């Protein structure tokens, strides 16, 4: 197990290096940041001076080497646009994204698995068929449309829920949370629902398929014939075996939501990392983009490792060499 984790960590490190190199070089070709940094009315000489001061006149490999060296020391450079450290800028947005992602995944997981089990017990009942049809919608309707529809229904016509932002937030140490106020939670509902809709549908379908397969197994028949109560048969004997792929997917999805909830955050003007990324791409703020992608890779790689470990906990049959 320990060697396995060590190996995964080394792999992760190599992936990170590759990611940093690719995005560093790609975004250098996205346009020249000096034009805006020097100001609209700068002369040719003034532009060159700005280029020198920010080290952008040096060859690419020198710039990349310096970037790696600084990154190894926890310094990801300053944003070209707001002129403050890029990592700080992103971390400031992290709580908002994390709370949204956590809420969305909890919602998707509990509802998705719950409905999945329910549907699998009587697959041909009309209600369950409707649920399945609805899940198709969840998978195929794009996030931005779900978002706009929810805003139209609940905010514009219904006037029930706020349509943008985080609402009232409370600063607890370095963490700015919206979970402690009613207003904050109201603001969380629509974006979380939008973000969860796709994940929910996937988890539902996955659980249902798994349950239908497992319910025909011999050991389930044995459990029934032993006279065990349905609760025990369904949740202890059947669902536990179905959970392995479901947890894997849910874990990976959490990473994805955390790293790439860009569309949802933009529609709801959610002040998270995805929103920042989009603005940074728009303004060609390379240090922030590169740092963001590095951070997203770290999140996804570590979640992958965590999911692998959870595997072993959920199913003792799985052993790592």
């Amino acid at each position, binding site marked *: 197990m320990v060697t396995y984790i060590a190996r995964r960590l080394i792999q992760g490190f190599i992936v990170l290096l590759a990611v940093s190199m690719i995005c560093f070089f790609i975004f250098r070709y996205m*346009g*020249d940041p000096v034009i805006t940094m020097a*100001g609209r009315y700068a002369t040719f000489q*003034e532009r060159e001076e700005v280029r020198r001061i920010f080290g952008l006149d040096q060859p690419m490999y020198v710039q990349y080497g310096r970037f790696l060296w600084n990154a190894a020391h926890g310094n990801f450079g300053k944003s070209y646009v*707001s002129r403050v450290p890029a990592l700080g800028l992103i971390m400031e947005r992290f709580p908002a994204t994390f709370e949204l992602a956590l809420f969305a995944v909890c919602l998707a997981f509990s509802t998705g698995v719950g409905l999945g089990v329910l549907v699998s017990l009587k697959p041909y009942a009309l209600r369950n068929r409707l649920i399945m049809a609805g899940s198709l919608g969840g998978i195929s309707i794009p996030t931005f449309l779900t978002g706009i529809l929810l805003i139209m229904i609940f905010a*514009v016509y219904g006037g029930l829920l706020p349509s943008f932002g985080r609402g009232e937030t409370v600063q607890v140490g370095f963490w700015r949370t919206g979970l402690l106020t009613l207003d904050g939670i109201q603001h969380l509902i629509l974006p979380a629902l939008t973000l969860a809709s796709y994940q929910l549908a996937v988890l539902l379908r996955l659980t249902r398929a798994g349950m239908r397969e497992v319910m025909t197994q011999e050991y389930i028949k044995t459990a029934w014939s032993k006279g065990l109560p349905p609760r025990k048969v369904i949740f202890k004997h059947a669902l536990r075996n179905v959970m392995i792929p479901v947890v894997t997917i849910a874990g990976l999805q959490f990473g994805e939501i955390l790293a790439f909830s860009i569309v949802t955050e933009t529609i709801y003007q959610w*002040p998270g990392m995805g929103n920042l990324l989009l603005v940074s791409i728009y303004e060609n703020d390379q240090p922030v983009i590169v740092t963001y992608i590095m951070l997203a890779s770290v999140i996804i790689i570590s979640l992958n490792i965590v999911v692998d470990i959870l595997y072993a906990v959920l199913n003792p049959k799985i052993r790592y060499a």
Partner: protein
Amino acid sequence: MKKLFLIALTAALMLVAGQVMAQTSIVVAQDDPPRMMNPHGDDSDAGLQYFANFFDGLLQRKGSEGTLAPALAERWERLDALSWKFWLRKGVKFHNGNPFTAADVKFTFERLSNPEVSEFVNTGKSIDKIDILDDYTVVIKTKDPIPWFANNMHQIFIMDKEDTESRDPGNVMVRPVGTGAYKFVEWVKGSYVKMEANENYWEGAPPIKKVEIRPITESSTRFAALVSGQVDMVTGVPVELYDKIAANPKVRVVSRPARRSIFLALGNKPGTPMADIRVRKAMYMAINEDEIIEKVMRGHAAPAAQIPDPPTIGYRDDLKRMPYDPEGAKKLLKEAGYANGFEVTLSGPNDRYIQDEQIVEAAAKYLAKVGIKVKLDVKPKSIFFPEVAEGKLEFYLIGWFDGTFDMGRTYFKLAHTRDKEKGYGELNGANYSNAELDKMLESTADIIDIQKREKVLQDLNKMAMVDLIVWIPLHYQVDLYAVLKDRGIKFEPRPDRWMIYKEISK
């Protein structure tokens, strides 16, 4: 009975309190989020409009015409071609209580030339020295004659020397301390900027006491926030949504002709078709601007016959657009020896101006009708503008308005032959060059008399638009805002699109 009276009293008080609150606070959804709170670090109008609420310049632009007016300087004078004297206002205090003096002015102008904190490097570097005559008089001497120097003083915001030097540079980037009409309360990036009235403001306390700005970049979300009553007004109504928003009974749409003109810039490299004035004329005549305004801009634009807008020095009201005449264009092309047309690449940004990509596409179609084969080259502004700066293009769409309200600076930037030594023509992206125009333009810099200078700039404008056709002008954009009717907001848009909250009342 007593109890009933108490209840009634409380209710009445709450009602009054509620009204006072409603009268004095405003929530606005703006389409452009602030990038920083360092007043010299962002020279875009999107950024300057935030700084202008917290800080003051030596001068300011007032109201719907953008008239230059005194602010931290009570009056000013151009002593000679290079020197500018400012008499400063006495008794002004920064938000932290420090008095405003000439030392702060000197500190501010010296700070401009440091690229780590400033995008006004050009203004900073153009200054030779700053003399403090006494605490309330300064003379600024520039290296070269800059006729529009004072015209730009509404964009340079004065910082407190003592406070700025004592704070960590990172803190200066996020927490503004100025002399402005509003004090900074809180900025949560991506969420809101909150500010409160400066009761000791030298111009008198502003009528609205609390302002909350919500940056919402997505236009449909901004609209939803307005219609559901979460914000009182929004800036930046997209033309696609205009009809829908105007049809909503709760909403009032406020529109104002913008200062920015949109135009096509053409190169004139010797030997290319566009070096021939007949070809330039033909291209001008081939474009159906009325149809662009009607179909692409959905009516929200005004035709332009020149680059400057009416309040700008150099504007002439006798210039008229050449009429749309595809037959005449074909005839001119034939005369010039291009009866079968020629090939040209038309470039443009796709995320900078209202409907920019669609305008470029429309122009290409009109030119195709007279036989000119246009290759389209549309790309994001982050790639497009560096190409303009490098002078790599031959024919492109761009928009412009000059913050100084003076065409001189713009002409040096866009029309003068590219000259690295003198620092001219940095944004002359198609390498346009005309010696006569250059000479006339250079002569304007030394003219101190304002009327005389205006006359020369007007002649220059006519020469560029009629005789040389340096550019094909298209239209002026229109700025659109939407306000909830029942909030009773009195708001008049400014020509520069800045949201200046001391000018808004309820």
